[in-house]
């Protein structure tokens, strides 16, 4: 196999300014090389900067530090040899399928006849013949993404970037499309020499890639790299693939310090709380306690059994670990003693235990409770906490983290929240529980 370099990133860094003007590093010291003939998958927690890295390679945003080169040339903007497939498809709704596919050719000034011929070929390649005249809104999600892929392939790119290209599709459609692309890749009818795929789906990454890079967050950097040399097409149920999936799960759930062996660093006030829905967490913990797991499970197995996706289950695993209801090690998840108690307990006990763990292990929740207790009225505006959070994250992220904290706080009966007034307040004990107001 040739190993000529196409894209080369050295010591790349990027930071964004948050609303109040402080810079926050999203990427730091990222080294990455994309070679000819390989498919690379990027995995990592939400917000770890995968999309940012992809956009830097696409030339859409400049890096702050380091060196970005495409075929040895510095990259100042989108290069002709790099095309991209978007999660949201990014089709122009007022152009027909054919016009959408021709977009890149038209931009290059290719005459109409040749444009039409090449677009025709690409449309046929991706299996959309007959839909040339349709508008995107007439198509299903899977077909729209096919148009997105045809639009990228028709300009004969050397590098194809895919940012969660399949995650907006339903599972079966996504799988079909992925298989079709791999088939094209294998058949050599594709002019593309390398692909970079960002994904949340671990199985997908393992099935597609020659190399899997796992990103660490805050700031984002490459934490570990896994080479996969099983020939494609790969059988998702084969032993080799299953072991690899386990390995990736282990890499993804190591504590934030980087290596599992190191002691976990002190949790901090402004930790990004994993977006775990408490009701699903309850369900997962119950499942974990039952047969056949009996309190300890292999993460991929649990994913399968719980019928959740990776990006639903991983936050739950991380959250329950954070609350010390479970332990995570080497891609396995196990109930702690408290976790056992929790699952066995009645509803009231569960809420109480959850609340206790919350106050003990989630500094943000403890801080909210502490601040509320000092108020004579027992309530505070949410803005105070949003401001605190947005010192270290952008406004949207802060909003999200506070939502999670509030949801957990409600479940653990640690504090309450009134949607209409935007006030966080202590639960009204002894009095009848506050009525849930329906949000309009």
């Amino acid at each position: 196999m040739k190993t000529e370099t196409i894209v080369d990133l050295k010591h790349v860094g990027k930071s964004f300014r948050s609303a109040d003007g402080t810079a926050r590093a999203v990427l730091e010291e990222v080294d990455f090389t994309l070679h000819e003939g390989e498919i690379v998958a990027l995995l990592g927690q939400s917000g770890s900067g995968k999309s940012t890295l992809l956009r830097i390679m696409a030339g859409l945003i400049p890096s702050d530090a380091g060196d970005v080169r495409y075929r040895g040339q510095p990259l100042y903007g989108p290069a002709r040899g790099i095309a991209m497939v978007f999660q949201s498809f990014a089709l122009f709704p007022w152009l027909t399928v054919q016009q959408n596919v021709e977009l890149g050719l038209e931009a290059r000034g290719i005459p109409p006849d040749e444009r039409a011929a090449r677009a025709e070929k690409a449309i046929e390649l991706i299996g959309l013949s007959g839909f040339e005249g349709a508008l995107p809104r007439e198509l299903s999600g899977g077909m729209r993404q096919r148009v997105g892929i045809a639009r990228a392939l028709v300009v004969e790119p050397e590098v194809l970037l895919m940012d969660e290209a399949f995650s907006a599709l339903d599972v079966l459609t996504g799988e079909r499309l992925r298989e079709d692309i791999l088939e094209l890749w294998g058949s050599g009818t594709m002019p593309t020499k390398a692909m970079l795929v960002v994904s949340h789906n671990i199985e997908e990454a393992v099935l597609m890639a020659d190399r899997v890079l796992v990103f660490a967050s805050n700031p984002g950097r490459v934490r570990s790299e896994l080479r996969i040399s099983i020939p494609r097409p790969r059988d998702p149920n084969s032993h080799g693939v299953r072991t690899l999936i386990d390995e990736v799960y282990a890499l993804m759930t190591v504590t934030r310090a980087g290596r599992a062996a190191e002691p976990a660093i002190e949790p901090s006030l402004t930790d990004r709380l994993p977006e775990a829905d408490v009701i699903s967490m309850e369900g997962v913990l119950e499942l974990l306690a039952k047969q056949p797991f009996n309190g300890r499970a292999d993460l991929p197995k649990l994913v399968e059994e719980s019928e959740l996706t990776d990006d639903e289950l991983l936050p739950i695993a991380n959250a329950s670990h954070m609350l010390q209801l479970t332990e995570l090690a080497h891609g396995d998840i196990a109930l702690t003693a408290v976790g056992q108690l929790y699952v066995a307990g009645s509803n009231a006990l569960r809420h109480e235990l959850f609340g206790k763990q919350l106050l003990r292990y989630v500094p943000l929740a403890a801080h909210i409770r502490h601040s509320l207790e000092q108020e004579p009225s027992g309530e505070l505006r949410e803005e105070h906490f949003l401001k605190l959070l947005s010192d270290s994250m952008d406004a949207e992220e802060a909003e999200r983290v506070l939502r999670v904290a509030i949801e957990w706080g409600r479940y653990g009966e640690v504090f309450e929240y009134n949607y209409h007034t935007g006030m966080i307040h202590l639960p009204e004990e002894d009095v009848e529980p506050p009525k849930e107001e329906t949000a309009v």
Partner: protein
Amino acid sequence: MSNICKLYRLLLRVDFNPHPIPVTVANFKQFFPRQVVESSGNRWDMLLLPPVLGLIVLLAFAASQMTRPYQVGTPIPLSLDPWVLPYYLLRTTLRMFIALGASLIFSCAFAAIAAKYRAAEKLMIPMLDILQSIPILGFLSITVTGFIALFPGNLLGVECAAIFAIFTSQAWNMAFSLYQSLRTVPPELREAAYIFQLSGWQRFWRLELPFAMPGLLWNMMMSMSGGWFFVVASEAISVSNQNIMLPGMGSYIAMAIEARNLHAIAWAIGGMLVAVLIYDQLFFRPLLAWADKFRFEESNGQNAQESWLLTWLRRTDRIQNVGLKFVALLERSLTFFRRDYDGTSVRARQSTPNPGLIRAWDAIVAAIVLIAAGRLAIFIHSEVGWGEAGYVLLLGFYTLVRVMVLIALSAILWVPIGIWVGMRPRWAGRLQAVAQFMAAFPANLMFPVAVMLIAHWHLNTEIWLSPLMVLGTQWYILFNVIAGASSVPTELRYAAQNLGLSGWLKWRRYLLPAVFPSFVTGAITASGGSWNASIVAEYVTWGDTTLQAHGIGSYIAQMTAQGDFPRIALGIGVMCIYVMGVNNFVWRRLYELAENRMHF
């Protein structure tokens, strides 16, 4: 034997019978060369060609009438005969469309520049805010002499002044809407455009303009009714010691008012109704239906627009081909103005703007503003005096109170009606169209009637002139509320039914919050329109009767009639301050509230 017979009979039929078999298109085509067959068009072409040609001839005729010789001071003969109304309507229509075209070009240039250069944006957007709140008479009084001097001895100068006046009542909101759309193009589409190497020109035609199209069209419709509203002021030019009446609807109305001729007013109202109907059916409806494909959201409450004319046009062959030729020409230009380099060329390198330069520019802008404010202060001090400035501020406050009270009153009236209608899909579509139509109708045509009533009953002008301000603008509230109510998700409706919400609770918890965002949108438009309308509504004439209410509008109208420049400037300045203040402190707040808390 029988075969020969048959052949013979056949020959006979072909040769001697002039109409042997009906000629259908299929067998007809075989006998003629291809070009002849294909260029003949279809029956829709046949049907539409005469009206299209007729329209072109009419417009050409009206255009030729615009460039007749003319000496300043000689009055143009005009008549109140209803039979000349169609001709006047034609002249006015032509002016309107020229102004609309100019507004469109202006908007594109303005929006493209403001969206591209941050430095320009800092100056241009506040400027637009100010321009938007300057009433049309202000522009006219400053520019009319210049335009007349531009084409000496020709009517074209005056025509240009009138067209410019109409332009100033149309352009600003279109430019603003386009600019806003350009700023809010979905980021992933913008990224796709960059990835696929679209040049600025290509981006504009393929991405930005299509995305902006629905908003732009909507604003074009509003601009058109804005133009109608000031048609009298723009055609019967009586500012800066000029007294010119151009042939057109506006002059006809002005003359009818002068002559206290109620019949002529009735004719004018009738003519306007027809004109608005024709505009709607022949121009805006087809455009809206065509622009349906530019809708960005997947689904929304508004049902797709339909237009019989567009359907017909789409069935034609030749007429449609003419349109396609233009499209092809545009597409040629797209391949011509392309980017020659990609992101690896040094030309793609963005030189980071020097922070010093940015600060210097900000300082310059601030200095310009300060100097302008200083000059204004000196000007007011020396020419008008502070006492009068304070008085004008007070007048502005009167008008502010009127606008707010009236918007509130129309809200109380139209919100429940709008909700009631919007919840009934069968009515909603039809009534929405009616409300749109009413908004396009120039309400000031009804003023003479109001004047007569007020004069007859000796009513208090301070109160009874006020409703005229919202006569035309209340409809924006109505049709926005209808649109809002008809897009309430069905699940929410069922939920409300299930919960058994009723009475005041139902309104407070469900119906009012549900239509609040669209109500705010409508109220913003209505309030802006009402401020502008105050100039015509607070100072109304009918022959030699003049009714006047105290307010900033009547002040400006009066000063314009007197040609007192310093006071016009003062009035306009104060009105700008009020309009911008209200926009900032009332509407923007409400808008944010609507965006943050009340959506589905």
